[in-house]
């Protein structure tokens, strides 16, 4: 090749190949890879999909996750939730679902400034399949129920009158339920200036919320306005061991503050938990606390001391549930993983859902 021809030929080859390869990213999704590490140590209990759909171009930018039916996370279906900062959509999927049918949607104001301003929890029920949705607004409690794929409805918003005519900022369900009901706690305040109190209720079949009649715990020492709240109560047969937990975002410190208290009647023993970096996101029957941050789950003891950590990625912690196995009954933790295989102009997109379980006592194996 003549010298005068070599360089232009080299440059032309370079330009052509650059066009072919530019903006091609490697096959890597941190959520999937980290989830793969952890899920390989758990038991796969349910698989749903492929569920076919034609996604919008911006669909990969939205968040989606799966919450298995609390009645039967192994053989049942569950709710597929798609959220964006402005709203939420819910479908009910089963192992025989091949397409998305019927949905329920609601608006949210859940952008960065108002993050975590709602709580979505599967509710155990003898009839149908239930989700409890709390938007942290005044008198705004929904119950989303599905009798099967394509039939998703909601009741609400419920004022919860008679229990607390108030702003609800958190709720937790204690997993030890029998007869299809749930022991559920609410953190709420009477507007405009009432103190924060926590109330114990029973959520019955059909979603009725019944105040258990206990004296509300007065948490008047908390700031009047709470942001990005997590609240939960660890329930023990021995009332002296009961603990309430709270995390909220403090703008002035640019960090989460976490507290616990043991008294059912007084706020005097409100105890700061400075060892917890981030927000408490779950309280387990073992008394351990989970915090999900930076694609990992950090496990603390009840006093806020860090115990261990494991990668989480795209795994979604769904709930803790009492497994009434006749031979070996125990508490189990349920996680789900949802991922899409993107199609093309001619081939549709496909959703795959996997549900994993691990005994609460074995959680440390994930480290």
């Amino acid at each position, binding site marked *: *090749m003549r*010298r005068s021809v*070599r*360089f232009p030929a*080299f440059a032309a*080859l*370079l330009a052509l*190949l*650059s066009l*072919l*390869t*530019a*903006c*091609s*990213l*490697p*096959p*890597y*999704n*941190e959520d*999937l*890879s*980290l989830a*793969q*590490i952890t899920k*390989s140590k758990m038991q796969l209990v349910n698989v749903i999909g492929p569920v076919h759909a034609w996604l919008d*171009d911006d669909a*990969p*930018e939205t968040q989606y996750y799966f919450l298995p039916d609390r009645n039967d996370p192994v053989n049942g279906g569950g709710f597929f939730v798609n959220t964006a900062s402005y709203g939420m959509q819910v479908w009910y999927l089963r192992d025989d679902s091949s397409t998305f049918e019927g949905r329920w949607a609601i608006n949210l104001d859940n952008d960065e400034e108002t993050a975590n301003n709602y709580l979505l929890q599967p509710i155990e029920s003898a009839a149908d399949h239930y989700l409890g949705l709390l938007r942290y607004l005044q008198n705004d409690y929904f119950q989303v129920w599905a009798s099967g794929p394509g039939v998703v409805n909601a009741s609400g918003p419920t004022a919860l009158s008679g229990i607390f005519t108030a702003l609800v900022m958190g709720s937790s369900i204690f997993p030890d339920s029998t007869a299809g009901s749930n022991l559920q706690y609410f953190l709420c305040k009477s507007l405009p200036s009432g103190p924060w109190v926590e109330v114990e209720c029973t959520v019955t079949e059909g979603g009725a919320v019944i105040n258990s009649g206990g004296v509300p715990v007065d948490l008047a020492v908390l700031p009047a306005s709470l942001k990005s709240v997590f609240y939960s109560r660890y329930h023990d047969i021995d009332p002296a061991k009961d603990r309430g937990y709270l995390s909220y975002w403090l703008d002035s410190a640019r960090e989460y503050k976490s507290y616990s208290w043991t008294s059912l009647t007084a706020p005097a023993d409100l105890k700061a938990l400075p060892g917890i970096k981030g927000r408490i996101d779950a309280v387990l029957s073992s008394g351990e606390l989970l915090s999900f941050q*930076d*694609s*990992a789950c950090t496990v603390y003891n009840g006093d806020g001391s860090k115990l261990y*950590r494991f*990668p*989480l*990625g795209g795994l979604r912690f769904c709930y803790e549930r009492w497994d009434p196995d006749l031979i070996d009954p125990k508490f189990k933790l349920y996680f789900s993983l949802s*991922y*899409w*295989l*993107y*199609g*093309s102009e001619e081939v549709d997109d496909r959703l*795959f859902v996997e549900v994993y379980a691990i005994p609460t006592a074995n959680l440390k194996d994930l480290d």
Partner: protein
Amino acid sequence: MVRRKAAALVLVLLALPLPRLPAQEQVPQEPVAGEETRRLLLCFDLAADANFSQEEELLLYESLLVQVGSASRKVAVLETPDRKPAASDPDRSTLARSLGADSWLRVSLAGDWTSVAVAAGSYDLLTGQTVFQFEMRKRLLRGAVDLERGFWDEVLEATAGYYSQAAAAKSLPGQVVFRAPPGTRITVPGGDTLRTDADGQARLDVQLPLTLSIRAQRPGYFPLENKYYLSQELTTLELEQARGARFAFDVYLNNMIFPGFEFSWFPLPSTLFVRTGFTTYLAGLLFSGRGEDTSLFVSMTLNLLDLGIGAYLNDADRNLRAYAGAGVFLRLITSLAYFGLEPIAPWGLQAILGLEYSRRLKQRFYLEFDPLLYFTSHPDLMKASLSSNRDYIGYIFFEKFAAYFLNLRLGFRWQL
């Protein structure tokens, strides 16, 4: 007065028929095929006390150049670059060698246009002898016309007389001895290829004197390409080649987005390489958008470590070099949540096909194709790990592995 004369001379010269003033590109003459031709470097200078205008100097030089060039078909005349005169005879010899000449002719002028003092001398590099040397004084009574009619006769006769005879002289059979490390391959134009023996010698029968171009190659060394002037007295050539590169350091962009670094060691310098390096996806620049909301900056908690071997496919002194090889790679996650092998497609094989381009031996641009073969037990998860279906381009997925054909590196390589 002199300037008016010079101007008139220019007009006269311009009016002369073209064959009398050939274009400069016609000098030097190309060697005539089938004939021995001498290559004579013309060195022209003015004495310090010479009094010539620039136009007069140009006329004198070009008339000499044209007439010497036409004096004999057996003499090809070369010019000094920019007509810059060499300071001494050794300098002229060195310059002549560097320009491929085998002799030089020096003409030095003094005086002025009306009385020109000419000093001429010539040296034959092949015989190592001064051919002639004389001085004379000339007058230019009729200006440029005199330049055409006999002004340079003595110089032309001396030059043509000697070099025509020298070129026509019957050459004698002889033998060239090349000295180089054993195994050196020596290529001589005309097809002969020699290889030095265990004593580091190779011999070639030739007719002497001779101008010989050779190319010496030895694995691990930069090829040596040069022209030598061999006489009956000078028949041994020492060939010293520079050792090739032992190490290299690369900086590159993977697929025009992500940076990477590579370190190479050459077991056989500039030829066989073993290399290791990494591409980091922690920070990259996405020059072509993937959507309206796409950021220019892209970051993934992934790194690719590679280890490979390969070989260059052509000589180390070529501007364009090709190489090929193969290797393995590992994918490593470096996130806050996890540090370790990526679990879905942790490793694979990599082909290496590259092209280097540079006019320098040791600093080179390169373009490299590195098709990847990922091994995976979860092809669906790997497919789901791509950001969108447009990223499927270039991939072929199988049950246990996936091939990606559009992996490209563009970089710069320093060889040490």
